[in-house]
């Protein structure tokens, strides 16, 4: 799960970067950025956080 979270976070980062070469429309680039950031945040704040919460000291 941690590996999936890391890979998804990286994917969310690269999506708008690669998208720069695919479109020159400011609107499209803006959408790609927002989607990419949403993917990265989901990966960090959901997948990775949940993966660590399973091992949390207060759950032992």
């Amino acid at each position, binding site marked *: 799960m941690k590996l999936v979270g890391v890979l998804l976070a990286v994917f969310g980062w690269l999506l708008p970067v690669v998208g720069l070469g695919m479109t020159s429309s400011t609107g499209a680039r803006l959408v790609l950025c927002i989607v990419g950031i949403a993917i*990265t945040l989901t990966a960090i704040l959901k997948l*990775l956080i949940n993966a660590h919460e399973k091992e949390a000291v207060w759950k032992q």
Partner: protein
Amino acid sequence: MTCCTWLKPCLWAAIVALLVCGLPAWAQGQTAAPSAPAAATTPPPLAVDAPLPVSGPSADDQAAGDPSGTKTGTANDVVHADATKPLTLVDLVNQAGQNRIAINFVWTLVAGFLVMFMQAGFAIVETGLCRAKNANHTMMMNFMVYGFGLFAYWVCGFALQMGGAAGVSILGGAAPLSHEFTIHLLGHDWGLWGTKGFFLSGATYDVGVMVLFLFQMVFMDTALTIVTGAAAERWKFAAFAVSSVLLGAVTYPLYANWAWGGGWLSKLGANYGLGAGYADFAGSGVVHAVGGLTALALSMIIGPRIGKYNRDGSSNAMPGHDIVIVLTGCFILAFGWFGFNPGSTLGASGALRISTIAVDTMLAGCTGSFGALLFMWIKYGKPDASMSGNGLLAGLVAITAPSGYVNTMGAVIIGFVAGLLVCVSVEFVDRVLRVDDPVGAISVHGTNGLWGVISVGLFADGTNGVKGLFYGDPTQLVAQLIGVGTLLGFVFTTSYVANLAIHAIVGQRVSAADELEGLDIPEMGALCYPEFVLKPDTTHSGTAANVSAGLQVARETA
């Protein structure tokens, strides 16, 4: 014949005489062509090495003293290339250039000294927000991060960050920083890291490069020290040392190169028409978000303090032990921020916007504290001291990126939003994410660092080359969001993977027994407050493991 009889004829004679003499003269004045000017003579060009006809006060004059200052700072003080010959134009021009660079050197160095002093502010803010039994350990992390970070940066961090940043004309050029490793992808060059300046050796043993190194180093150290607050009260000192060195040697310099060292983020404007490229004037992203996101990664890996959360997931407050030093530390940081933001012009000669930047900084800090104060007062019925301090810091963090590009109204709004945002973020991180952050570093620096980066794309007014959405350029916002994505997707993940590796190899967290005792003795070998008796208090509900130390004032007589 009376006098009146001959007076009348005399008067008439005088009138006639005036007319006879004056009319021709008046006519001549109206109709006479102006006489042709004498042929203009062009002075011969001044030879650059010709002696200039200037001199200062004599030696005897100066020996008589100068109470008014009119005899000090004269032609006598201009350096002659050849001391045996009189002053020439070349000497004068060289002196003007030297003066300009000297002013900028002094400004940048003094600003760097102010930022270095912020280490003291961070140290006492974090220590005050922690419990007394961990005070020595927390202070030592903040104290030694200066040395660890500086050493790592000298070895390789500065080279990776600024090795290709030649062309800093305001500091004389920094020409030895002349190579950036670049790849060609998708039709454009992408600068990734520099390759000149390892150990500040070779050609980078240069006065301009040294100024740049000092200034950039203290910024790097700010990012490193942010992390110590989030992992306080349970971080092994040895693991802290390794983690800090990695952050200062690799992760921070890479992102900083992309933003400030001529790397790909700064070239988004030239390569893809995205405004002026990623713009981060003094480092909301490069410094604060890097520190805050690394703090998030570490806090997730290291886990919360024992007693922070109950079995049902509800959280317990663990108040710090000294609000006095927390708020004093906030003032020290606010003072040091005058070096952080205005200093990022890297000069004063030809950079008079330093005044606007300083005022923007003050205003944002002020409204940041207002935002936090109002939020806490309205929601909880009391103004909270630690959150007010965090609100001030949040405003300062948020204005750091846009400070060179916005007007005072923008600064006020950015700061106020930051003050509200830090309160919301602290609750979100604590209660929803259940990530333990004793000092609020993730919310102050991470959340508001990202807000600062985004606010450039909204509020930049165009007077310093950057224009945001509200002033007619949406493409700048796209560049800023790509920077945000890079912070989240590259910086966070790199820090996460690196610290996970350290955790797997040496372990990041101290033992439960050491944590409950307090880290001062197990990790440092000495209490911060040996004359105070620390006793556990059981005011929190929960299990036997849910113990935290309070502070009881007692004096043991010798």
